[in-house]
């Protein structure tokens, strides 16, 4: 099977610092993959490389068999990679509903003239987006908060809204950057169930960064471990838990 996302020998230099080096990764369609590693290992940098925020200094990144190196972030999103952010980046002053509606942007089928004169497909498309957005909010139990300003939501709800918004872009690959950060154990458990459920429901492939080991080990089918910008191990959760390299990276010890 052809991998959905494939990174080959990717290097990313920030001046003299090697943020990511000789990075190889592949994700098959339908997989739920985790990317873990100590702070500063380069996990978010890897996400930024996949989404076009950074361009790799060297190497190749392919999505659906085509190179995405050199594409702008919005072009990559339109090809089917959506993401959430480690430090939440909602449209803070807008309503919960508008946050999701914005993400339908490139699926909307009416032009500028139709929008300004409110003719043609304007009303039907607006109605369609609104229904779709409400459907997504319902899945994430946010429908009762649809008219609330995003910044007023509790932290856990903001994280859920970020995922709902990313799904509105109807991606094939969803990148989740620490989705459980700041959540209590019960919220984390709910989130795990939800991630599993949306993967099956939407036929998604998911790559997630997470520090919460119970979450990663609980739901990921395969895990990559990153340290100092290099992948030091990969495998199933059971393999990773017993990998001496990983234990050394996390707990220290004489190398």
């Amino acid at each position, binding site marked *: 099977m052809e991998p959905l996302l494939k990174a080959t020998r990717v290097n990313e230099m920030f001046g003299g610092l090697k943020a990511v080096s000789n990075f190889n990764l592949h994700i098959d369609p339908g997989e739920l993959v985790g990317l873990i590693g100590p702070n500063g290992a380069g996990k978010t940098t890897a996400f930024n490389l996949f*989404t076009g*925020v950074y361009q790799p200094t060297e190497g190749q990144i392919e999505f659906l068999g085509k190179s995405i190196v050199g594409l*702008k*972030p*919005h072009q990559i*999103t*339109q090809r089917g990679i*959506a*993401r959430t*952010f480690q430090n939440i*980046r*909602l*449209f*803070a*002053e*807008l309503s919960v*509903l*508008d946050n999701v*509606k*914005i*993400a*339908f*942007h*490139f699926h*909307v089928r*009416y032009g*500028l003239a139709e*929008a*300004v*004169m*409110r003719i043609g497909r*304007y*009303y039907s*498309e*607006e*109605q369609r*987006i*609104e*229904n779709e957005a*409400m*459907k997504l909010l*319902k899945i994430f139990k946010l*429908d009762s908060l*649809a*008219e609330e300003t995003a910044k007023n939501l509790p932290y856990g709800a903001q994280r859920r809204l970020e995922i709902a*918004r*990313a799904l*509105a*872009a109807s991606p094939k690959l969803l990148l989740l950057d620490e989705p459980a950060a700041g959540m209590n154990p019960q919220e984390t458990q709910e989130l795990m169930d939800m991630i599993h459920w949306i993967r099956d429901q939407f036929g998604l492939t998911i790559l997630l960064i997470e520090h919460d080991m119970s979450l990663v080990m609980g739901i990921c089918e395969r895990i990559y471990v990153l340290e100092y910008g290099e992948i030091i191990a990969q495998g199933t959760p059971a393999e990773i838990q017993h990998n001496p390299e990983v234990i050394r990276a996390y707990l220290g010890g004489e190398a």
Partner: protein
Amino acid sequence: MGELLQMKKYNSKSAMQKFDFLLLACSVVLFAAIQAGFSMDLIGSFWKLNIILICINIIMSASLNLINGYTGQFSLGHAGFMAVGAYVSVILTTNFGAPLIAGMVLGGACAAFLGCLIGLPTLRLNGDYLAIATLGLGEIIRIVIMNIEYVGGAAGFTGIPHLTTFPWVFVTMIVTLFFIKNFVNSTHGRACIAVRENEIAAAAMGINITRYKVMAFTIGAAFAGIGGALFAHCFYIINPSSFTFMQSFNFLIMVVMGGLGSLTGSIAGAFVVTALSAALASWPEFRMIIYALALIFLMFYRPQGLFGYVELTAYAPFNKLKFLNKEGGQK
């Protein structure tokens, strides 16, 4: 899906159309009232001119709000685009005897073209840098015009036919406001607002940031050009000193005072600033003091402006309008 049918409709078609109809009806009533005031001589020529200026300033502040308030790009060159529209239109009407509408269309088109051309490189800049670039742009336009003999240079362009009438400005204002209202309530407007709120997140949602910045800038410039065309035909003469940096700043004050990202705010801001300066016309020495005091008080008590990011319709009395609420309130 049964549960979907019970979903609350936030922006149903009929509610939107009813709301538009209500706005249109209000405008017609307002128009008729003011027009009646003119014909019955209840409103003198001084206030007649100022009402026309208020309408033009509403066009200017609403279009600037699209750039500064909705898209979050701090532009200080609005008077420059106004100047382009003004001069292009007077050349057409005065030298070629074209009707006002032709001047407005071509003036707006030229301003839009310039806005697009200049927006492409400058909109890569952020915040202060963009403000300085657009400020410089406005000044460049003014100085270029000042040095073109064909349009009278610094002395100004004279002999302009007095074509701007109240119906013209009022209708143009309504068209402008509807255009911008519909734009910001569409996916394109939402994209602009997303750019303002968070550029990185907007790009991650598939929004082409540069495209929407340039689009907002171009539309804003187009309406500034149209406003300029109307402004130019109010008097018999225009000269470059009407389009200085201070004029751009004036429009900015209207937008900020009314509230960034609020059309109702732009209307209120343009009204308050224009009416205030007209009312204080006889005491020019107090004008600037009161102006400054008003801004200081605003900064203390309502730093977000009169309506910051909120439309009048968000306030309680509007939500009580039964016929709008039957199928969900309007935003």
